[in-house]
């Protein structure tokens, strides 16, 4: 069952101008997986890809392909191909020649090139476009050429650096589906970079959440969503209320002035913790019937649900409910054990998960760390 690791990063550290951009990064990537690096702009995603592709030598640490250490292997000898953030197609070559490039470099035979380019054109839905200049193509078409140009070399690993960020929403959705299809059909390991959490959750087998040049969590999309490891991950993936609590003992946690039953274990006695409550997991009941009570300070109709901002003991929660409520109403709140997720305190504690400054227009921007 256990698949072998195709890439391993061990203690990778990279600094630019004395600033650590990657800090002792460790990562194993399984053969054939669709892995997504997810993180805000500037967190080091591109840098990590460049270390894997070989364009950047880490200051410390080792890169392994299988069992082979490849730190000193130049990019053109690595079994990896990259789809660059801005495609980087060859402007002097047409669609056909762009795609054929890798095979021509290898000195492949004419018939082989013809056949494989046709195959690629079909895979990326660009049949009939082979004579077009790449500079005259739309963003989506250039994207497809870039994919075909990389895949024709049958790399072991394909690196995709925010390949969809320049496309409009509709095309983006189509390409997400298409990339996933191509990955399944070819069985090639994809390492996909995005800052869009929805994209990451919907496409990946494994999500790697990055922040501050470090990996915050590695897991399946479901794990990442349901079992975030710290306040950063909880806040970055979906909406989260993150509340200070005390873990009394296994399966018992106190926060918001009430002691709840939960399903989390493995904490010390009375350990201070961060408690995550997803807005959709809150049961809203009449004021007397809840475990705790709150005051609605803002109610927004969202079509299929209402989004409430509820003040509970001086802390503002986001709550999503299908019933209609109004600003100023008192409500009761019920939390079943499964809806409570407890995390150890981290460097991100207190920075995220409070909706007191929330407005619909912009996401809550956490204070920049020093």
């Amino acid at each position: 069952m256990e698949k072998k690791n195709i890439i391993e990063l061990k203690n990778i550290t990279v600094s630019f101008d004395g600033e650590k951009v990657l800090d002792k990064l460790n990562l194993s990537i399984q053969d054939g997986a669709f892995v997504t690096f997810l993180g805000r702009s500037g967190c080091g995603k591109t840098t990590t890809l460049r270390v894997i592709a070989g364009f950047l030598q880490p200051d410390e640490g080792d890169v392994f392909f299988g069992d082979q250490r490849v730190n000193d292997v130049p990019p053109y000898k690595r079994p990896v191909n990259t789809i660059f953030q801005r495609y980087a197609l060859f402007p002097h070559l047409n669609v056909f020649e762009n795609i054929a490039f890798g095979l021509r470099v290898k000195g492949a035979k004419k018939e082989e090139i013809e056949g494989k380019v046709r195959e690629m054109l079909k895979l990326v839905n660009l049949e009939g476009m082979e004579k077009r200049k790449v500079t005259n193509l739309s963003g989506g078409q250039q994207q497809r050429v870039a994919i075909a140009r990389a895949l024709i070399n049958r790399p072991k690993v394909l690196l995709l650096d925010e390949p969809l960020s320049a496309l409009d929403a509709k095309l983006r959705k189509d390409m997400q589906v298409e990339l996933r299809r191509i990955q399944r059909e070819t069985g090639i390991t994809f390492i996909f970079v995005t800052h869009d959490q929805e994209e990451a959750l919907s496409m990946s087998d494994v999500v790697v959440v990055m922040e501050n040049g470090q990996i915050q969590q590695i897991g399946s999309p479901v794990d990442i969503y349901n079992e975030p490891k710290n306040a950063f991950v909880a806040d970055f993936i979906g909406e989260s209320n993150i509340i200070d609590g005390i873990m009394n003992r296994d399966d018992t946690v106190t926060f918001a002035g009430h002691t709840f039953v939960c399903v989390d274990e493995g904490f010390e006695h009375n350990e201070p913790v961060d408690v995550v409550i997803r807005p959709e997991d809150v049961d809203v009941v009449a004021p007397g019937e809840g475990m705790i009570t709150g005051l609605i300070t803002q109610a927004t109709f969202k079509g299929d649900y209402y989004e409430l901002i509820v003040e509970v003991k001086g802390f503002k929660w986001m709550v999503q409910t299908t019933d209609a409520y109004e600003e100023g109403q008192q409500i009761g709140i019920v939390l079943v054990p499964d809806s409570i997720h407890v995390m150890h305190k981290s460097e991100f504690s207190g920075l995220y998960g409070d909706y007191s400054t929330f407005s619909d227009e912009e996401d809550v921007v956490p204070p920049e760390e020093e």
Partner: protein
Amino acid sequence: MSGTYQGKAGKTRRTSLGTAILNAPYLLWAALFIIIPMFIVVYYAFTNKDGAFTFDNIKHLADYSGVMLRSLLYSLAATAICFLIAYPFAYVVCKWRPSSQKMANMFIMLPMWINLLIRTYCLTTLMDGNGLVNQLFVFIGIGRIPLMNNTGAVIFGMVYNYLPYMILPIYNVMSRLDKSVMEAAEDLGCNAFQRVRRVVFPLTLPGIISGIIMVFVPSVSTFYISAKMGGPGDFMIGDLIESQIHSQNSNLPTAAALSLVLMAVILVSMLILNRFSDDEEGGSMLV
């Protein structure tokens, strides 16, 4: 309503009038100093001393075919050498820090600020039998080497004078190449040599072609350099034209005919070169 309309119309007319006024000096310049001299050259080339139409001047050019061929060969050699020096140089400079690149640019441009005649004159004093270079050779024990008054000296002089005109256009194009395209080539399996051959060269072709034109054109019509640095057998077409004009019985018709041929040679070579840069598939064709 109509007032506005008229105003608009008036404005349009004024703009076109303005454009005409702006264009006028250039058109006048072109007519006075480009078109008319061309006609004069053509006139002299096809008339004899009495002003009658004749093909004799052109026919007599056969006597000078040796000089013409020599000019062509020398200028091709100088252009080729300039390219071979300039291309790797530009490639290397493009990898330097921006501040160093600015410095390098300065040093390339510096000689261009000095008049060609003075530059060449300085070069001759350097390379003379008793010049600084030979003194150095004597000092380090190689002994005197005849550096001047031979073909090598002429070509060296041409390369020395025209090299910046090759470097600058190539450097300009090369420094603006998209770095990520180079990385894409490396990513797709190109080693350094293949990157140059398959990506850098085709993408810098426009710069190469400007460089070739900017070196070849003055090279093929070179005078003074060849007269000053060459031997008796290194006479070039530019020298020939000059001597025809300045000789005691000034022979303008022959000079004009020679100029006409020179212009034709330049025109044809530019047409050939433009074919390369205009071709949509130019890159792949050359690879």
